[in-house]
């Protein structure tokens, strides 16, 4: 038992201080206002202070910190993308994640378990080969493996998927990990708070003041804040913010649902994803199976649950693991995802001076939390986006230079 827990046992009063101060009313002005107190916004505040010495920063969260998609996702971290730009970006995120518990002095349970993307068709194998080749080129450990290797890592998996969709192989991605999602938000919040950033919960942005194409302030339910730099980090709500500044983007909102079973003794060590069966699953450190599926098929700004989702998901789970028939689903929930046409984020500067976007995080936002915070902080500090996120710029749509992640979505004949 680590000694650091002894202080709790030996002390009469709980010795841990607040993670972050309970600010109520914002000051008259800040150098930077960050809209959204999720992992991304808080990470940006943290790196603004830590990397750039910018500490006169307000983070405005309309609910509670980490209450949006940070606290609703299935916590998978990976970098096995299709394009070199994508792989480089997410790999940089993985690298930060690996040392983040130490850096933030908070155990994020960053657990590297290995990630299998199962292929049930020849065309899926093709896409995986493509991803593996690009990953390899960039120096990320991904390779196409056969059924034997999958069986070794997960002997409980029915490789024939109940005879319905036999597994032909998989893309194995060694760095694939899971982490405690809440902890990521809390750790960045504490880090940012200690370095001087101010976090305001229950603080909603009502409008953004733009004059002559420049940001000059933000109106909130707690008063007006003068600022020349605003970062929108509100995946799931981005269109509501961009509408305030008259900015058009391709983003539409679709719910993404997930569910969790009762705890059972751990048996599933790997993270498994099946594109054909629309399932991703891992087992948490509490022993629950955490399961997700594909995006809801239509736009809705709501975190309601549907029965269709959980029926479809469980049916496919049983194809993979027939013995789970009587294991019980405890809870289902949903988040709202910013979807872009090329399955890549929208990051960086916008045509409005001082208005920065960290958006379009679709279903892949959690894994990018550290690197998005770092690169957005860099973008704000220098008023110029680093090369690492150049291909995610908003203007790529006008330029007809969508990112190649869309390529993976094409279907073979």
């Amino acid at each position, binding site marked *: 038992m680590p000694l650091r827990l002894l202080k709790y046992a030996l002390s009469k009063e709980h010795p841990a201080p607040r993670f972050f101060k309970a600010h109520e009313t914002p000051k008259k002005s800040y150098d930077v206002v960050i809209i959204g107190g999720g992992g991304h916004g808080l990470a940006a505040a943290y790196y603004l202070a830590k990397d750039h010495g910018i500490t006169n920063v307000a983070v405005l969260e309309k609910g509670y910190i980490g209450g949006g998609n940070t606290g609703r996702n299935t916590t998978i971290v990976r970098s096995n993308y299709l394009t070199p730009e994508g792989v480089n970006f997410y790999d940089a995120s993985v690298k930060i994640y690996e040392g983040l518990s130490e850096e933030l002095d908070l155990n994020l349970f960053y657990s590297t378990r290995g990630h299998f993307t199962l292929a049930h068709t020849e065309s899926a194998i093709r896409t995986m080969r493509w991803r593996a080749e690009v990953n390899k080129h960039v120096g990320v450990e991904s390779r196409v493996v056969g059924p034997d290797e999958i069986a070794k890592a997960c002997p409980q998996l029915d490789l024939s998927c109940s005879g319905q969709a036999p597994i032909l192989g998989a893309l194995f991605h060694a760095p694939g990990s899971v982490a405690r999602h809440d902890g990521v938000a809390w750790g960045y919040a504490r880090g940012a708070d200690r370095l001087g950033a101010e976090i305001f919960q229950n603080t909603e942005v009502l409008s953004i003041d733009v004059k002559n194409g420049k940001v000059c302030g933000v109106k909130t339910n707690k008063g007006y804040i003068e600022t020349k730099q605003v970062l929108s980090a509100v995946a799931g709500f*981005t269109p*509501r913010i961009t509408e305030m500044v008259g900015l058009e983007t*391709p983003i*539409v*909102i679709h719910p993404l649902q997930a569910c969790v079973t009762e705890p059972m003794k751990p048996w599933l060590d790997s993270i498994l994803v099946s594109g054909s069966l629309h399932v991703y699953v891992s087992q948490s450190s509490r022993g629950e199976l955490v399961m997700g599926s594909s995006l809801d098929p239509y*736009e*809705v*700004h709501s975190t309601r649950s549907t029965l*269709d989702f959980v029926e479809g998901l469980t049916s496919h789970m049983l194809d993979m693991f027939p013995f789970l028939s009587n294991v019980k689903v405890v809870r289902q929930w949903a988040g709202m995802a910013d979807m872009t046409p090329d399955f890549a984020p929208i990051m960086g500067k916008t045509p409005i001076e001082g208005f920065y976007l960290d958006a379009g995080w679709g279903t892949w936002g959690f894994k990018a939390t550290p690197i998005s915070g770092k690169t957005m902080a860099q973008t704000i500090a220098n008023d110029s986006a680093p090369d690492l996120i150049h291909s995610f710029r908003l203007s790529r749509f*006008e330029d007809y230079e969508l990112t190649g992640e869309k390529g993976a979505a094409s279907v073979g004949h």
Partner: protein
Amino acid sequence: MKLLNCPINGTRPLSEFIFGGEYRVAPDQDSCSDAQWAAYVHNRNGSPGDKKEWWYHSPSGTWFIAERNTLTDKVSRTYLLSNANLNPALESAQ
């Protein structure tokens, strides 16, 4: 929303329908600028509110328009695009 009213087939469960995105009118391609066209192709009106949307009743192959609030997920009405003259706003858009 779990039920949707197809103007031809009546009220059916949502699983029989496919979402076709917001009903949008393209700018005149001969007179619009490249930037206007690119914006039309890529950008979307993503904020919540009342939208006119394409929906497809799959078993019968029927495309129709549903007026739906994307925040509450309530459908106020559905009709065939060819009957859109019921709706002055749509008519002028055409």
